[in-house]
């Protein structure tokens, strides 16, 4: 089969049928024989892999979501009865490698890949216990021993290893980094994640459909609005319910507020990691000011319980919205002042510029996602590419940089901070009147939907299938950190060990969001 740019679009998008939830989402069934060809053709047509997962009910299947422009395509591969294997696609979409390994741990449905090391399963439960298998009960016997994970060894004169984690020196999430270094220079970084794996996907199946948004919000607390919105977007699509316009605008307000809070936090931490504590003082003060400004509108500092099925948990009064928009404007003004100080500070520039580079070509090859990808020339943003209401009306300006270094990731954050502040003011001024919440009736069993929301870190995806009696048969939340963790391994090559915290912070990836 010759890969052409026109054929696959015709071939896979024309056979695809609409999928509930995200705007423009479609799905197509593929056979085991078509699986790799489909992936190859879609890769040739510049589709990116957004997520890959497996399911066991009603039958064993592999699912992948790919995106290009405004196309969001889910491929469903039903496995022949009695089989649990499928063809590896990591050579076509490198981002698939870890997703395939995690899927094998959870359902036993495994790709015929070369790297079949477990990913989220360490030593706490036995290999034959499959948490998402239909018959999964409680694992037999508990172990709390350290397992011996086969890291790739780098050998040669003067090469030594530095193991870091899972407990890190700062106030951050758990994970293990294995550096192979010569002197101060990093030859190779290998990550081992999964420490924060707490059985989220199994837990979903014991929650009612109309309550799953609460767990979705807690997949990665810093992206609570993005995940809970993706969940209810899938659910509302499945239930054929359209929330009132006011509710959708308030969700967008919450999403932009979440983006502002995270960008403020990161911009301070990045200054600090570059040895400029002044930056942390300024931005952590601004972030606190911002979180306090959110309370009168959302009744929370972190919006974990704001997005609910059918709308949002509470309406916002005009006065409170105006105050929020004013606060956002004040913060943007102060942030611009600190930006000018960052830009003129020789020490900060020295640490930021040329550090932790991911070139646009590598970003494209490895399927980098979200904010970090936009700093490496990949101008993808779901708010623009496949806008959920009200984003088409808001007209988001994508912020993109080409250099792919820490300085570029800082610049994207500054740019997006300004843009989100503009969006907050616009939403506060133009919020449609009406209800803030509508009715949602749980859909019939066996209905599927897909949610796709551009969170502050990148595209957040959530695939949902209903069970009988208003239950959840399967829910797979997907954080863009899956795509970007491997890029961090590349970004650090050739840099010095002391620059790792700075490079790591410039990505600021979620552990919980990928460990699940």
């Amino acid at each position, binding site marked *: 089969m010759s890969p052409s740019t026109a054929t696959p679009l015709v071939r896979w998008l024309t056979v695809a049928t609409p999928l509930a939830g995200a705007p423009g989402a479609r799905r197509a069934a593929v056979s085991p024989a078509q699986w790799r060809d489909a992936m190859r053709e879609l890769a040739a047509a510049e589709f990116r892999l957004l997520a890959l997962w497996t399911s066991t009910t009603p039958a064993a299947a592999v699912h992948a979501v790919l995106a290009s422009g405004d196309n969001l395509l889910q491929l469903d591969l039903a496995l022949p009865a009695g089989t649990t294997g499928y063809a590896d696609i990591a050579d076509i979409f490198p981002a698939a490698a870890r997703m395939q390994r995690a899927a094998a741990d959870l359902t036993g449905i495994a790709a015929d890949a070369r790297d079949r090391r477990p990913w989220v399963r*360490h030593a*706490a*439960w036995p290999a034959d*216990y499959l*948490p998402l298998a239909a018959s*999964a009960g*409680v*694992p037999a016997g*508990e172990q*709390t*021993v*350290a397992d011996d994970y086969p890291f790739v060894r780098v050998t040669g004169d003067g090469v030594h290893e530095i193991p870091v984690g*899972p*407990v890190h*020196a*700062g*106030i*951050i*999430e*758990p994970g293990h980094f294995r550096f192979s270094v010569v002197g101060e220079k990093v030859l190779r970084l290998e990550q081992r994640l*999964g*420490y*924060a*794996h*707490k*059985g*989220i996907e*199994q*837990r979903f199946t014991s929650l009612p459909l109309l309550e799953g948004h*609460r*767990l979705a919000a*807690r*997949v*990665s*607390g*810093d992206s*609570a609005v993005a995940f809970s919105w993706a969940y209810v977007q899938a659910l509302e699509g499945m239930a054929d319910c359209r929330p009132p316009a006011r509710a959708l605008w308030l969700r967008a307000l919450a999403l932009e507020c979440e983006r502002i809070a995270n960008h403020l*936090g990161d911009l301070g931490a990045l200054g600090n990691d570059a040895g400029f504590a*002044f930056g*942390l*003082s*300024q931005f*952590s*003060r601004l*972030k*606190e000011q911002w979180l306090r400004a959110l309370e009168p509108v959302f009744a929370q*500092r*972190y919006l*974990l*319980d704001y997005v609910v099925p059918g709308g949002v948990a509470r309406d916002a009064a005009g006065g409170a919205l105006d105050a929020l928009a004013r606060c956002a404007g004040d913060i943007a003004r102060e942030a611009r*002042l*600190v930006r*000018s*100080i960052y830009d*003129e*500070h020789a020490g900060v520039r020295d640490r930021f510029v040329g550090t932790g580079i991911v070139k646009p070509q590598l970003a494209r090859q490895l399927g980098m996602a979200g904010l970090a990808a936009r700093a490496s020339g990949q101008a993808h943003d779901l708010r623009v590419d496949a806008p959920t209401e009200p984003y088409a009306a808001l007209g988001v300006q994508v912020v993109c940089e080409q250099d792919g270094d820490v300085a570029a990731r800082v610049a994207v954050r500054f740019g997006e901070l300004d843009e989100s502040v503009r969006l907050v003011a616009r939403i506060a001024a133009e919020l449609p009147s009406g209800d803030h919440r509508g009715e949602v009736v749980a859909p019939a069993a066996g209905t599927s939907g897909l949610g796709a929301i551009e969170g502050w870190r990148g595209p957040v995806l959530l695939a949902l299938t209903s069970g009988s009696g208003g239950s959840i048969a399967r829910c797979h939340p997907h954080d863009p950190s899956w795509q970007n963790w491997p890029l961090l391994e590349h970004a650090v090559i050739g840099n010095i060990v002391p620059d790792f915290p700075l490079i790591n912070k410039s990505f600021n990836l*979620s*552990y*919980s969001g990928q*460990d699940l």
Partner: protein
Amino acid sequence: MYKTLRQIRHIGIVTEPPRGADEELRVRAALQARIAEVLGRALCIREVDAGSCNGCELEIQALNNPLYNIEALGIRFVASPRHADLLLVTGPVARNMELALKRTYQAMPDPKLVVAVGDCGCSGGIFGENYASAGRVGNVIPVDVAVPGCPPGPARILAGILTAISPGR
């Protein structure tokens, strides 16, 4: 440099006075008078995320911002459990983190104060207990003070920390 100094002068000191300890949060009382005497003026904290959603981490980080300014109270976050008087633990304890949490606890010098932060640390929260989650922190190591909330705000977390080192009733 001029801009930096001008901004520092313009903002001034924004630190707010902390609220005190809250006996409601205490789970277990041990040697409180002695602890207050020894640690009351200089406390070192090691934070361990044992499997949280990272929401609690964001609020713990806020303790270092100029408004809460926890260092001004003589409280410091340290990089090693060997330097720590108090362990601040978040999350339902992921079974993949159970061993690391126990080892961190063992590495601390006595009296090994432990404050569990957040609904998950207090009760397992929405995640509960399953093949991968051991639930609340108290299921894995002894807990002195538990601070509920999802996530609890910085003022509540600070009250929990101060409770752990206060003389008690």
